[in-house]
């Protein structure tokens, strides 16, 4: 028998160590230490009800356990085989106790569709993939469906592009099919550039065959025989695994001429990105594949009409493709029952930042931010207070406490002033200054703007400069108005998606954290203590004994004072390095 005690950060804070100790002590006392092992585990993802103790092999799940309950668990459950009823989880709707965690719906918040094979198969072995249904969907589509039928199935499934915009995938294919040409192309966008997002990379590293298979299906549907994967050169492992997978698929005849004897030809080549975020935009991506500067061009013409080398081209991203084989195997009706009204299926997020369980997660559309952050993510790191969650990367916005119960889908996120983006989800706590966060994203945009259109090239630069002024404590309230107008104009007039969304971090923080901006421009304060120029080091006369240690360590000579007399800091000279505070043995120096 095993007693698993949750050792996740959340539970640990509420004394799971003590629980382990107590359990062990009880077992020792009853001489059961050889039959029953107490084991500390990682987070169960249900921190709200922690600490948690799970009993194996019967899967009994105890919630909100205290050290005092240890005795009871050993005596009742371990020795007498009776469950401790009052520690069991009660279903919130039926109010009934549930003992077996396998029946706890809330517990498994995640549903893995796109990630179904990640961490399950050996990505370098096609046999393992095939054993788990890889290429069966391709076989089904080629053998049983016309391109029109297959596209209809895609439309019925309700799948929307996972790369950011959320355009219906089936519709996109339909347009590409309707444009006649001697050659068409299928392009997989694997130029994942959001800082803090790694969904696509993980899929390519963990399950490359799902992408290859989906691209072939896509090729069949729109009448393309050539596929291209535009992949970041910074992803060497993903490139290697993809190459291996393509090679194996070719050897099996699942790529190449006359696939599965159906007369359908399809093959895939790789094209490498070279570090330009804007190449996530499909026209820029296509120019980059053609060996040009990755500058976007105005749409229309859409790639579906005139794309790579001027031919009709369909571009989808990695995660979108990874969903597709399952949809054909299980049917559109299976897929469109998952998720919300307008956003079907699941979404993969790279959960990171000030959160305990940083990781790759996949949840059905409609899951709330709270569930993701507190249940799957295990809550905020170091027990700090939640402040904001940023979704959509540099194109998204910062959502706050009041958005936590919003079900995540494309439209809700946009309505809240953010967006789905590719799926980066960064959690921030009380130590993060929201003005600085906005500045951080703008710095990114300024660096990544291609420079083609003036609002993005110059406007974002000015936004960044304005934010910098505010962070330095030199902003005025008028500047906030200017920020807003400039942000709206940049959104309204920019050429491509990058510029059209780049002010979102500014607008959403202005909306949700206006008070922090006001504090910066009016009170000249940064509550998170991030903006150096707004900090003041002060010496408390009552505690200062005049040891002169601070004056000696100050690199700029900003501290004056007589030996054994109180010292003062000249704020005009101080560079806020913090050396004095570190040196002071009497806690006389504080930061404001």
């Amino acid at each position, binding site marked *: 028998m095993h007693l698993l005690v949750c050792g996740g950060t959340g539970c640990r804070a509420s004394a799971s160590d003590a629980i382990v100790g107590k359990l062990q002590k009880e077992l020792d006392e009853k001489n059961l230490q050889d039959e029953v092992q107490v084991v500390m585990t990682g987070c169960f993802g249900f921190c709200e009800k922690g600490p948690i103790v*799970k009993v194996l092999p019967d899967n009994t799940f105890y919630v909100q356990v205290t050290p005092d309950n240890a005795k009871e668990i050993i005596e009742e459950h371990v020795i007498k085989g009776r469950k401790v009823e009052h520690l069991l989880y009660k279903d919130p709707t039926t109010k009934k106790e549930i003992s077996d965690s396998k029946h706890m719906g809330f517990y498994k918040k995640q549903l893995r569709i796109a990630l179904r094979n990640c961490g399950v198969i050996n990505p370098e072995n096609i046999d393992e993939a095939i054993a788990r249904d890889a290429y069966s969907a391709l076989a089904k589509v080629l053998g049983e469906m016309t391109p029109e039928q297959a596209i209809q199935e895609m439309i019925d499934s309700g799948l929307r592009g996972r790369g950011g915009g959320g355009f219906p995938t089936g519709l996109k294919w339909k347009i590409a099919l309707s444009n006649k040409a001697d050659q068409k192309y299928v392009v997989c966008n694997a130029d994942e550039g959001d800082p803090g997002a790694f969904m696509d990379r993980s899929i390519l590293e963990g399950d490359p065959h799902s992408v290859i298979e989906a691209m072939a299906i896509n090729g069949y549907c729109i009448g393309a025989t050539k596929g291209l994967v535009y992949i970041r050169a910074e992803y060497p492992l993903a490139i290697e695994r993809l190459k291996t997978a393509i090679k194996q698929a070719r050897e099996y005849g699942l790529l190449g001429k006359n696939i599965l004897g159906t007369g359908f030809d399809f093959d895939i080549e790789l094209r490498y990105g070279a570090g330009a975020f804007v190449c996530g935009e499909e026209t820029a991506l296509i120019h980059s594949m053609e060996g040009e500067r990755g500058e976007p061009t105005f749409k229309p013409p859409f790639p579906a009409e005139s794309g790579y080398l001027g031919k009709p081209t369909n571009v989808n991203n990695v995660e979108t493709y990874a969903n597709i084989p399952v949809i054909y195997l299980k049917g559109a009706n299976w897929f469109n029952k998952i998720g919300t009204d307008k956003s079907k299926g699941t979404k993969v997020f790279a959960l990171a930042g000030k959160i305990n369980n940083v990781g790759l997660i996949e949840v059905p559309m409609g899951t709330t931010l709270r569930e993701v952050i507190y249940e799957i993510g295990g809550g905020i790191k170091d027990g700090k207070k939640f402040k904001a969650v940023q979704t959509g990367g540099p194109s998204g916005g910062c959502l706050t406490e009041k958005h936590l119960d919003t079900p995540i889908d494309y439209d809700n996120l946009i309505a809240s002033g953010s967006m789905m983006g590719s799926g980066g989800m960064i959690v921030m706590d009380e130590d993060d200054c929201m003005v600085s966060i906005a500045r951080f994203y703008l710095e990114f945009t300024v660096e990544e703007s291609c420079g083609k259109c003036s609002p993005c090239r110059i406007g974002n630069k000015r936004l960044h400069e304005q934010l910098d002024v505010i962070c330095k404590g030199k902003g005025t309230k008028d500047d906030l108005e200017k920020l807003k107008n400039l942000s709206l104009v940049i959104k309204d007039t920019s050429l491509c998606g990058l510029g059209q969304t780049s002010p979102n971090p500014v607008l959403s923080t202005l909306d949700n954290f206006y008070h922090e901006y006001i504090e910066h421009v009016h009170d000249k304060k940064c509550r998170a203590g991030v903006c150096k120029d707004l900090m003041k080091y002060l010496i408390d006369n009552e505690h200062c004994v005049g040891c002169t240690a601070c004056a000696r360590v100050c690199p700029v000579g900003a501290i004056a004072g007589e030996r054994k007399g109180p010292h003062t800091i000249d704020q005009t000279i101080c560079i806020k390095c913090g050396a004095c505070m570190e040196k002071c043995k009497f806690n006389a120096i504080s930061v404001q």
Partner: protein
Amino acid sequence: MVQVKSLADLQNLKASLQNKLELREKGEKADSLVQIKVAMATCGIASGAKKIMEYFMNELEKRSIGAVVTQTGCMGYCYAEPTVEVKLPNQEPVVFGYVDLKKVDEIIEKYIKNGELVNGIIPVNYETIDDNNK
């Protein structure tokens, strides 16, 4: 080299591969064969998964334990890399996080040899499409 030339070929291949995998899982040597998967995506490798995998292979051989050690993609527990999934014959797989060489020793000695769980288990917190189907 297998060439999959028709739909029937693919179905046959799939069936035989599934058998093979099942054999590997539940076959004749079911009593002795342990399956170990090491998460080898970028984050795993960055935290030293390669060394863990090699160590597993060497140590299991040294200690004469019949096992299959394979690599796999990201399991999603980036915070707890390197992560390793161990499946004892006829048992549910168990995932261990924050695995270092010392932990490997512990896993081999306690869990693989004696079925005793050790600290650092990561509870699986997701459903796959296979579960969802039911």
